């Protein structure tokens, strides 16, 4: 327990301050946990490794959690992994339940964060050994499983799949990057576009554009009149928050936390897949998932516990293989490098003090995040009370600044934001679905890389089925997920048909009666 002597007040203050700044970064559309960590990375020089880690882990936890705020209140995912939070959070906010939704998110987040921290602490080396069983083939299948959600997320399966395919197609624009082992050649564009689109569209501007800007355009179409009605929404009134919301949802909470941790520990699969998978699993496995997507707390629980569970998960391969599990831990590794510490399979046994320090910081940051957010929500939720003609221009400005900053000052990212804002608006106008499109966009390029690499490595299509027992299990899950969507689709169509016949039946009777009375 020698590490206890290293814990001083500054350590806890830094972790807490990190969580606060992280939340702010996460809450501003276009600024992410990764950015927060990157900006503060040079500070670790001055702070020393242990204090530096306290700050960075605080930023990491805060940054991931902060993403829920704009997702719920404004329909803009603050970070890519909070996309699924918008599905139920925004409808709840529109019903005046923004505060309740945020509180559900905060509780789910802290549970997810703490479960993953426990898993990290107890099983890191063991799980790292398990994670290397996932080669290109298994990673491709995980992405495919996440993509299979597209079917169950859409109200019309055909349109959903079509939107998803458009998303995948958009993600393939640009080069097949050499850093992914590709040939560095561009495709799906004209030569004159190359200077702008060499690396394709950046994820975050696309995300903010398609969710945020298009929402604002749709609102703008309605005009400012609706402001008056907005004021009547009493935040926090009606069904308030109580822990009983979690009653009967514990399985969801724990399952989603484990999914988040698990996806986090697979390098290169990415955070968005975690919340998407957790969300679908809830949709597929819950007894009643009919309200999901319309403002159901269970969707928020799945999404937020999974994306916070990523933090512990992504630290597993970092600390036991020296390989970052997601983009933020890829920056975090810099803190070790700058201090001349090698992270690899022997990091934990050789640096037990640093290891305990990190665990303390991670748990403490989660707790600080919980208290900061749980009690600040009342005030944060008031954002929706700001008149829209004031709020929306500010959001647009923040989105533009965020998009410009995300790749350190690329103007084309701002154009991307606007292009996808308009595209998102048009897509909704012509009846396509945004959620499958964006999931396709996020997962498409990864799916391509892992698919091509699997074929390059093994040289045969059959490898996808025969690679390992893990692959077989994943196929089982994919088939179950698709079957489930089809069954649900057929059921809901049958129900609609029945309702329709009932309605037409009753109108016919009514008109028949009218006719009868007329003829008399």
């Amino acid at each position: 327990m020698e590490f206890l002597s290293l814990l001083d007040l500054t350590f806890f203050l830094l972790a807490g301050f990190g969580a606060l700044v992280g939340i702010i970064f996460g809450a501003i559309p276009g600024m992410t946990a990764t950015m927060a960590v990157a900006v503060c990375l040079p500070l670790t020089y001055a702070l020393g490794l242990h204090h530096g880690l306290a700050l960075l882990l605080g930023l990491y936890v805060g940054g991931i959690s902060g993403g829920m705020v704009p997702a719920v209140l404004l329909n803009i995912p603050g970070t890519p992994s909070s996309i699924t939070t918008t599905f139920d959070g925004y409808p709840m906010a529109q019903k005046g339940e923004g505060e309740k939704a945020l509180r559900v998110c905060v509780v789910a987040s802290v549970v997810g964060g703490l479960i993953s921290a426990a898993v990290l602490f107890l099983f890191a080396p063991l799980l790292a050994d398990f994670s290397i069983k996932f080669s290109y083939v298994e990673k491709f299948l995980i992405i495919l499983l996440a993509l299979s959600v597209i079917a169950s997320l859409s109200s019309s399966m055909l349109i959903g799949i079509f939107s998803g395919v458009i998303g995948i197609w958009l993600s393939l624009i640009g080069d097949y990057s050499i850093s992914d082992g590709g040939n560095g050649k561009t495709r799906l564009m004209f030569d004159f576009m190359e200077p702008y689109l060499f690396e394709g569209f950046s994820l975050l501007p696309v995300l903010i554009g398609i969710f945020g800007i298009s929402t604002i355009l749709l609102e703008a179409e309605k005009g400012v009149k609706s402001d008056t009605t907005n004021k009547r929404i009493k935040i926090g009134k009606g069904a308030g928050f109580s822990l009983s919301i979690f009653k009967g949802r514990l399985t969801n909470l724990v399952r989603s936390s484990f999914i988040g941790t698990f996806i986090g520990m697979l390098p290169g699969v990415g955070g968005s897949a975690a919340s998407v998978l957790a969300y679908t699993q809830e949709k597929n496995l819950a007894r009643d998932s009919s309200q999901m997507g319309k403002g159901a707390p269970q969707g928020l629980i799945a999404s937020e516990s999974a994306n916070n569970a990523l933090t512990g998960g992504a630290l597993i391969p970092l600390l036991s293989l020296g390989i970052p599990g997601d983009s933020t831990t890829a920056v975090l590794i810099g803190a070790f490098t700058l201090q001349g510490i090698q992270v690899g399979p022997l990091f934990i046994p050789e640096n037990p003090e640093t290891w305990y320090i990190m665990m303390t910081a991670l748990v403490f940051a989660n707790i600080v995040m919980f208290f900061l957010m749980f009690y600040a929500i009342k005030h944060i939720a008031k954002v929706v009370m700001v008149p829209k003609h004031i709020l929306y221009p500010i959001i647009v400005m923040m989105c533009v600044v965020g998009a410009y900053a995300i790749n350190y000052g690329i103007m084309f990212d701002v154009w991307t934001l606007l292009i996808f804002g308009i595209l998102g608006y048009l897509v909704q106008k012509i009846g396509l679905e945004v959620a499958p499109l964006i999931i396709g966009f996020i997962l498409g390029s990864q799916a391509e890389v892992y698919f091509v690499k699997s074929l390059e490595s093994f040289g045969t299509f059959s490898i996808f089925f025969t690679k390992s027992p893990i692959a077989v299990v994943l196929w089982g899950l994919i088939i179950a997920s698709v079957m489930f969507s089809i069954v649900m689709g057929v059921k809901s169509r049958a129900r609609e048909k029945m309702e329709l016949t009932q309605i037409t039946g009753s109108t016919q009777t009514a008109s028949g009666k009218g006719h009868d009375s007329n003829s008399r």
Partner: protein
Amino acid sequence: MTVSKKTLTGLGSAVVMASMTFGAGIAMAQDGPLRGNIRVVIGSTSTGGDTYQNSTIVVDKLAEQLDLNMKVDAVGASSAFRTLDRDSRGNTLMIFHDQSYLGYLYGVEGYDNIFEKYTVGPTVAINPGNAYLVPKDSPYETLDDIIAAVGDGEEVRVAIQPGGVSEIGFSALKNAISIEHPGQEDNLVAVNTGSQSDKNQQLFDGQADVINGTVQANEQYTRLPEDDQKAMRFVWLTARQDTIEQAPEEGLGQTTREQLLEYVEPNVHVTMGDDETFTFDKEFFFLYNKDMDPAIVDQIDEALTEIYAEGEIQEVQKNSFFIPNFKPSEEATEYLQEKMSRYEEIIENIQ
């Protein structure tokens, strides 16, 4: 309107955050031609990699010496080149390594001839860690075993990231095989992958027999017990012998300099023909916009000369397993140009 404490705290932290994001304001007036805020873009997107680490060491010292605000941004090669293209004032500088011309030699999209398009600045350090590894239980004990096996018609797969530093050792090996065992070189097969984790994974999966790696990233793997699926063994470090000899005696992690020397020439011999042995030191240097004021080139040269004369930076670099290697711009350009033509030959030979 009452302002709550929370709002104040929120505002306060927002200001702190904003100031951290957008830098610490304008630097004080300077005398030299280089003034204002200086952004140093690097050719890697990773803040955990050697380019970022080495650039941070050099830029920190330089900022102190010149009394300027300087910041390293890990934007990646193509963004870095594009950013440098746009700024001829000298407020954007670039630090990169041999990849900048190897990418051009391998014909990678987005790479031009740096000696024509940019001004090559001073070299600052070498990372001596470029390595090739095999699984610990591999039948190949040495690089000679691999060359002999390929010469005998056995297929050996090497996981590399194509088009640069990771590939040059592979190309040299292929060239050596074509010299020693003409016609057999096609048995050495490149497995194109991306990041270090992908290369490691190929080894764990048995999809590669040899991987390119680094001393820094792979040293801990070489200390795992043989029955561990992840255990590896160095077979070759491409650095020159006298480069490794300058490393600290304790080496890196628990692998001493003595042990590392076992894997470099002359213990490992990769022929280039005419008794010449192939070596490759990964060197870091500055790149400037071609139209930048030459007085800035001189100013940075002078500042670095003073920094290296003080001797402190060498200690910091060595502690981080870099070998200090300062050469002023002119000398560096000539040296790197010659280096490029040497590798150009190898790449042409095997094509």
